[in-house]
């Protein structure tokens, strides 16, 4: 949004396009809603195992980048931590990796996610939900079926109909261990 505001100001100072600018709505910084981070840990674990392998979303060249102990590791530039390598099951997913996964999910379709939480659209309208069900084209194929524990885990978290920190994680735990 800052870029848009800057562009409009430049046009105005140039003395041209004032009439055009005046027809545009007033822009403001938007705050976009995303489901609670407090309840994301088990969802992240699910995504790490089912989506985050190195040959899929555990890859810096793909959208919805997923970090985790089974796939891509997020190694800070100045870190000399030699335990942060892919597949090191003794080095659990770090908090910064989990936060990055959260940003990946929230940033995939931020406006739609916001509208979902506001009750304006249904969960089926999110590509995050449709792709693993293969109701939208997905190079990785069908990852899970609608209504099964991994699907319910993701949908429950996305719909955010719980107090932050109080999500029922039973589906997520079942999906992780199945």
């Amino acid at each position: 949004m800052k870029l848009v505001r800057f562009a409009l100001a430049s046009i105005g100072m140039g003395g041209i396009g004032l009439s055009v600018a005046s027809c545009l709505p007033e822009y403001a910084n938007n705050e976009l809603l995303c489901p609670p981070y407090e309840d994301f840990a088990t969802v992240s674990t699910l995504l790490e195992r089912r989506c985050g392998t190195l040959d899929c979303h555990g890859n810096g060249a793909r959208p919805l980048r997923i970090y985790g102990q089974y796939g891509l590791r997020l190694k800070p530039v100045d870190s000399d931590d030699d335990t942060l390598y892919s597949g090191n099951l003794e080095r659990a997913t770090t908090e910064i990796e989990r936060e990055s996964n959260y940003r990946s999910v929230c940033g995939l379709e931020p406006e739609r996610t916001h509208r979902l939480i506001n009750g304006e659209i249904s969960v089926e309208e999110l590509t995050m939900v449709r792709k693993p069900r293969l109701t939208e084209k997905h190079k990785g194929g069908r990852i899970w079926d609608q209504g099964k524990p991994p699907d319910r885990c993701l949908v429950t978290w996305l719909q955010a109909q719980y107090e932050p920190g109080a999500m029922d994680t039973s589906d997520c735990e079942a999906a992780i261990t199945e």
Partner: protein
Amino acid sequence: MKPLAQVLVGLVPLLVACDNPIVDAKIEALGGEAADTPVGEYHRPGQPCVLCHGEYYGADPELVIGGTVFRDRQTLMPVENARVVLYDAVGDIYEMTTNCNGNFMRSAGERDPQFPLYAEIYCPVYGPDGQPLPDGAGGVQLKVKAMSSWISRDGSCAGCHTLQGREFDSVGWVVCNETGDTNPIPDQRADCPGKPPMTGGADNTGQGGGA
């Protein structure tokens, strides 16, 4: 030139312009063939086989799965007669055996594994005399190693198990012996037509197959 011919000639650049620069760069980075290894089933150990032997590049034969099994993380010594077992998404099981350069592969055919895949490697167990230990049933003792995650879509084992070793984006090459394992797998036999990576070759980049 007739108009139709002009149109067809004009289409040629469009038809050949469908290259994937990312895949092309990966293939180019593999370097040339090793001088000490003939092109064929023994070549380019530890390299991502399906990059070239896939639908895109079209090297013959087309492979759906390919990889290399090495002895340990300290050397790039290949393991012969390791069994690689894949379990696919529809319940089918596929087995391959490594050759003397550690390579295993499955050609594209009428029954291809359906991703995602789960993989196990059965490594032959050797005695101190360098001979495989019998299992008492006419076979050889095998030690199983299982992947901790599944293979989602890449038929090249080396796509993730790269020769750069364990990194933030690599699990390291596929091995039978982890640190602390005592299975004395012998060195490669001398009459093997292929040579392991980093043993010299065309440009000695250490990228596998001597290349």
